């Protein structure tokens, strides 16, 4: 189980790096799909079927939209020169990554290991959630009943994004004749 996750994560990291470094934007987007669909399998392995279902559809739609944008504009990645600057960048990122991971490892050493999570807030959801909400699927029970207020916010965010997209994509911003 853990081995499987590690393999999948390695694949996702590979996909992510390839997607960021690819010379063709279309292949970058497809490699990005590897990350998203890898995440779907991770969700399935980690016993989150709800998320897997949402993620697989959302990922597909994101890919469609991204490909539509790219086919509509250009596929070429920009040409970048290798110079002193990029070497400095790479060294800096490697050092930063190492430091971040070191501190992360040190800081989380005292916490519960993988798979040994303790419950506090969700203890009540598991023990009494089904009778309190009447929903057999506890995740649905949590998102629409215990934390329904969050879900209102979430639906609002999608609404905001739609209004934002319609606003940004209108043809003309200002009226022609002032006053």
């Amino acid at each position: 189980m853990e081995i499987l996750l590690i393999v999948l994560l390695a694949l996702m990291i590979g996909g992510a790096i390839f997607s960021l470094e690819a010379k063709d934007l279309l292949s970058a987007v497809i490699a990005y799909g590897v990350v998203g669909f890898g995440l779907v399998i991770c969700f399935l392995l980690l016993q989150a079927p709800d998320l897997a279902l949402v993620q697989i559809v959302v990922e597909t739609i994101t890919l469609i939209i991204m490909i539509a944008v790219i086919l509509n504009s250009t596929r070429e990645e920009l040409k970048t020169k290798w110079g002193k600057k990029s070497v400095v960048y790479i060294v800096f990122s490697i050092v930063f990554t190492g430091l971040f991971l070191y501190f992360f490892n040190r800081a989380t050493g005292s916490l519960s290991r993988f798979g040994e999570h303790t419950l506090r807030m969700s203890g009540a959801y598991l023990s009494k959630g089904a009778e309190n909400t009447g929903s057999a699927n506890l995740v649905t029970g949590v998102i629409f009943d215990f934390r329904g207020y969050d879900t209102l916010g979430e639906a609002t965010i999608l609404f905001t994004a739609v209004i934002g997209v319609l606003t940004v994509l209108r043809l003309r911003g200002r009226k022609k004749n002032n006053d």
Partner: protein
Amino acid sequence: MDSFIPLFVVVPLGGAFLTALVGSFVKGWGRYFTSILLAFLAGFSGWLMFSMPGPIVYSVGGWELFEKVPIGIHMVVDGLTVYLLIIINLIGFLSAFYSIAYIKKFTAENNYYTLFFLMVAGMNGVVISGDLFNIYVFLEIAAIASYALVAFGIEKEELEASFKYQVLGGASSLFILLSIGFLYWKTSTLNIADVSRIILRGGKDEIVIFAQVILLAGFGLKAAMIPFHAWLPDAHSSAPSPISSMLSGVLIKAIGAYVIIRLFFNMFEITYKVSLVITVIGTLSMVVGVLLAIGQWDIKRLLAYHSISQMGYVVLGVGIGMLVISQGGKTSVASLAIAGGLFHLFNHAVFKGLLFLNAGAVEYRTGTRNMKKLGGLAPHMPVTASTSLFASMSISGIPPFNGFFSKLIIIIAAVQARYLVLSILAVFVSIITLASFLKVQRFTFFNKSSDEWVEKGVREVPFPMCFSMIFLAVLCVVLSLLIVPSVRELILTPAVDVLIKAGSYSAAVLGY
């Protein structure tokens, strides 16, 4: 009264959906509807401030504590929250009223008002929420609405500023979510009061420091403190003026500074290191912001850099308070410093909001923001010129305007806490601010013969714009009253007490 708390979120959200729905059939619907609802909310928050007996805790969905663990989402309204709610809804109302005339120049008015409502709803939601993840969700509503509003004019520089803002804002949101993940890992709960109890019980823990650092980076980006300020000048100067006034006056406070203050006082233990970091960040923002502002010739860009600097004052005041508390100093000094910071928060919202509205009025009539091309506007736009003078004197700390008193309190507190260097820096920055605003006044409203503007037909802006500007200018003077002890005890002291008595927050929510 308790059951009316959700109105702060429900009213603007409902307003947004109704505007989107009805506004596409009825022309001009959003124009007046927005102002009416926001005026109602501002009045309501004012009423709440004077009639509130103590902290109000509202459990969404009616979920009681289960074996002493909160399981639902709680809304918490205490002195600090009400203080912020008044700022948000008051400035929101005035900006919306100003927009009635200003936004007629743009197309898709309806979307503008919908996004405006959503932004206000998001900020109100962040302020009244008592749950970490809920704060994240509402913060995203406010942030996404503001991304779209920055790009509202869809010209080159607006789109570009919006993209930059969105990338940095998105990254900061993910940092915040990551640190919420760390805190959930450590405590298995999301309620701020509950998290606070567990952290305080656990003593020193490295994961808490790690989460604090990431959280500070995330919210520091949202509040545009100095190492993370890159997006602010572009975004705040490109947006339509009423939106600039909302962004600079309210948004960076409600989803940046407020959350930092709330979490670091009421959730984490105040330690010397963290307070030192916050003070240093505040000082840096104060000094570097004003130095960057000197060379600017674009009015709104200059104002945006001054926003960084003035937010530095707020964070500095609060940071000195934290330092004093962490070293076990006198409570009176700490509460003076925090009071200065919070007072300056309100003042900055008022005068910076006013200055951006002034800049908008100038741009509305002349079509440019470049100070080199302006000058001699004072005879033609008397209201704009005089209100702008009020605001400039207020921001540069000239008595008897409000900015003077809040800066004075912060400086006195710094002296009392023996941080002489900080107080000298604060005075120094104030002087540079004065110089900078003398330049604004001179090059915009005076200095040049004004015949050129007569040909172009420059005259005073329409009534809604004038009304908002005059209202804010009056507030600039009236807010000085907060220095009077009896008024201060009514408004400022409850807000400061919440932070000084850090444990009272958890006690109010958990009841033990």
